[in-house]
């Protein structure tokens, strides 16, 4: 549905800081009906990407196509303006027009958009859109008299009412309080999936990205570092950055010995046996999720088993987080709250090889 090819954008230097290369040749595809997340820390270029797709920002080069229509191509000099791209968008601020009622807000794309629609049809379709987001009773309310969650629903109804070919969501949950965010996350995904609308979702929150998307692309410094399903990226990160950004993880640096499907990595913890990386490496980082660590009683031997001492424990309720000193290193672990773990306890730590991921040493700085 959406195809982005080699998109670049550089913001010229301003008085106080140098030029920013927001996009350095980004390519990705979104399949029809997919819920796709663009994830990354602030300044990674994801917002510029979204704005370029929306037509609110003009890239320097590359191509963007929606279905059969090329909406932007530097080669052909094509740049269809935002109002003719047939998009729906929920903004971070919701951008609900405060001088209009809920009805007028939602009716706007039909009344003033590309294809003019008759009065009766507008009324009918606005009602349907408002019912969809459960705001049917609020049609005559002035927009400022709505709560944050309601404003978000109005924004969603407005973005969907004209049946756009692509829905863009710009951090739509970041302005909601934590509880509402959890419910809206599920509701939003269900609603969009039930309508079958292709959706591009931009966020800096990896929990939102994983919880909502079918596929996601992780961005950093203007490039996509990895894309795939949430499980792919969480369980099989291709870089220390991807591992670290997607959740808590142990990043253990070491020297790689041997070649073949399995390699040995000499680390401060000890020698860790794990599957080889895609490329041959001399030095590497072993990524071990805290959840991957198995904890046993003292004195148990076996592959990738190490003796350790529990250094500290925080009881958080739904999980218990701890740190175990193994050799010259420190490992983060997560155990279930019913298990008794106390500082000073000696334990055996097992790192199952299939749960260890070897990635190249990181070139840039970690966020």
């Amino acid at each position, binding site marked *: 549905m959406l195809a982005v090819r080699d998109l670049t954008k550089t913001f010229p230097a301003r008085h106080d800081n140098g030029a920013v290369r927001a996009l350095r040749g980004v390519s990705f595809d979104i399949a029809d009906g997919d819920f796709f997340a663009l994830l990354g820390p602030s300044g990674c270029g994801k917002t510029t990407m979204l704005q370029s797709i929306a037509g609110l920002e003009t890239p320097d080069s590359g191509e963007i196509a929606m279905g059969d229509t090329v909406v932007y191509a530097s080669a052909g000099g094509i740049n269809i303006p935002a109002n003719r791209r*047939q998009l729906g968008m929920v*903004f971070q*601020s919701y951008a609900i027009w405060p001088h209009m009622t809920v009805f007028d807000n939602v009716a*706007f794309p039909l009344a*003033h958009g590309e294809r003019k629609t008759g009065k009766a049809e507008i009324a009918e379709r606005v009602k349907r859109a408002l019912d969809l987001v459960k705001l049917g009773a609020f049609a005559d309310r002035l927009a400022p008299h709505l709560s944050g969650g309601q404003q978000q629903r109005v924004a969603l109804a*407005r973005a969907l009412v004209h049946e756009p070919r692509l829905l863009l969501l710009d951090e739509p949950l970041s302005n909601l309080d934590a509880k509402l965010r959890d419910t809206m996350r599920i509701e939003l995904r269900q609603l969009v999936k039930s309508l079958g609308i292709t959706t591009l979702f931009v966020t800096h929150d990896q929990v939102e990205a994983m919880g909502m998307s079918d596929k996601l692309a992780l961005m950093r410094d203007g490039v996509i570092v990895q894309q795939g399903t949430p499980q792919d990226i969480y369980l099989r990160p291709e870089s220390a950055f991807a591992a670290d950004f997607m959740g808590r993880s142990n990043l253990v640096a070491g020297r790689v010995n041997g070649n073949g499907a399995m390699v040995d990595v000499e680390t401060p913890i000890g020698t860790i046996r794990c599957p080889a990386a895609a490329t041959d490496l001399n030095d590497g980082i072993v990524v071990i999720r805290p959840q991957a660590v198995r904890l046993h009683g003292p004195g148990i031997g076996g592959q990738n088993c190490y003796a350790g001492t529990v250094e500290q424990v925080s009881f958080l309720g739904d999980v218990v987080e701890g740190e175990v000193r193994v050799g010259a290193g420190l490992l983060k672990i997560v155990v279930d709250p019913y298990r008794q773990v106390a500082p000073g306890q000696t334990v055996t730590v097992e790192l199952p090889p299939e749960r260890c991921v070897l990635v190249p040493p990181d070139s840039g700085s970690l966020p």
Partner: protein
Amino acid sequence: MAATDRRPRRWRVDQQKITGIVLLAIVGVLVLGPLAVLLRASVAPPNTMPLETWAVTFSNFKAIFEHPATPTIIGNTLLYAAGSVGIGVAIATFIAWLTERTDMPGQALIRVMMFAWMAVPPLVIGFGWILLINPGNGALNVLARNLFGVQGALFTIYSFWSLILITALSVVPTAYVMIAGLLRNMDPQMESAARVLGGGRFAVARRITLPLLTPGLFSIGIYMVMAVVQAFDLPLIIGLTAKIPVMSTRVFLLSVPDNGIPNYSLSSAFGVVLLAIAVVLMWLYFRAIRTGEKFRTVTGRGFRPKPAVLGALRWPAFTAAMLYFAIMALPVLMLAWTSLFPFYRLPSLEALPLASLANFHRVLDSALVQRALVNTVLLVVLSASVVMLLSALVAWFSVRGGGLLGRVLDVMSFAPTAVPPVVMVMAILILYIKTPLYGTVWVLIIGHLTIYIAFGTRTMTSALIQIHKELGDAAMISGASWATSLRKVILPLVWPQVANGWLWVAAHSARDLTIPLVLMTTNNVVIASVVYTMWDFPDVPGAAAVSFLLVAALLVVVVPVQLLASRASTRG
């Protein structure tokens, strides 16, 4: 699909681009045209039409700097500006402190009256004072003679001190509005902290409040000096008789002499010198603002400082504030009195039965006044509307459009701030005198567009900055064209600021004398120039009647809006 898209797309992209280019052309002609002509004329040989020769000479500047009167004129100008601003800002600070930081009664009343006084033309105030304290039969002088047996004249209007004092009184409202804003935005926690840490009230005022206010007061002072250096009305009607030439009147007399032919090249050179002084002041002003920003104290939103308790001094303080308004009202009352008699009479009870509205009938029947009325309405309505339209578009391009076009438009529309109106209008005169526009009301409208577009753009820029960018983006994404998004989303959101700006421009356009006087012909008279010509004629009762009508009309429009605005601000 791509093929069918191409044709309409081109037009739609251009909707914004074409508007930008047209806007650039209009603002360019309005602003750069006169400035270029001014510079050209200043190096043209004397006694030529500057646009009809290619010769370049610096003899005009030489003449200015060698002329023995020049140092006096520049000295007069600076003394005049410094003196009137010093006194005006002192009075304004005192009243602003009373209304913003004390428990004095009647604060809302004083605020509204201040705003209302900004609508009264300096021209009218000047005429009123001439009637009150001219040395021959000024009402106050006669009163002093009769009551206290004072010999000769107690006061005289035709002195440097009178000019400074009257100007000082007339700058008070503007200074008050700016200083009150400064006081209101000051974070009271700074003072509270000093009090908590053991500072006495006097120590806090001296060591905390005043130093914090100094950068703000300084920049306001420079702004006011800039305004007074550019001022023209009062120096014209008081200063000329008193033989106190300042730069603005000098420029005027050279281009519109009472007798002899205008010397455009010399007056342009004078204009360039005045412009240079204005630019220096402007630069100082921006420096002062930037210094002020460094310790700006605008943080405590919604905090109302605890008012200083005046106690027994509450009513005396109120009386002192009202005294200012009484003094301000005197000239207007004097004009009202004068307008009721067929010839000038001193105010007295005996004269009262003779009062009649005959003058009003007479002036309203006069063809000249009728023409002036029509012209004034045209001038005011069109100037204000076109200024706000251009300003809103310029502001959109500079805030949202981004890029070079936006920046160029922004700078160009701000440039007239540095150009004294009397200089600008002279340049406009030279530029348009050979075109059919000269002598019509249209050339006056062009003048007012040029002078007020800077204010309009400032107003609209700050209004648009408040509007979240995504509100406009959302309209575009919804499929609305650029024009529709402006009309349906942006404009309704900034409507109050547009209306306010319109009113400001309309009021200033109605009271301005500079533009209509320099460009005056028998056809394009407006109320302000009619008042001036009737006074000069002399038809003092007629001038008084027209002045009174002008003031009344301005107050009728301005006061209700101010009342609404003040009620809205206390509610919100």
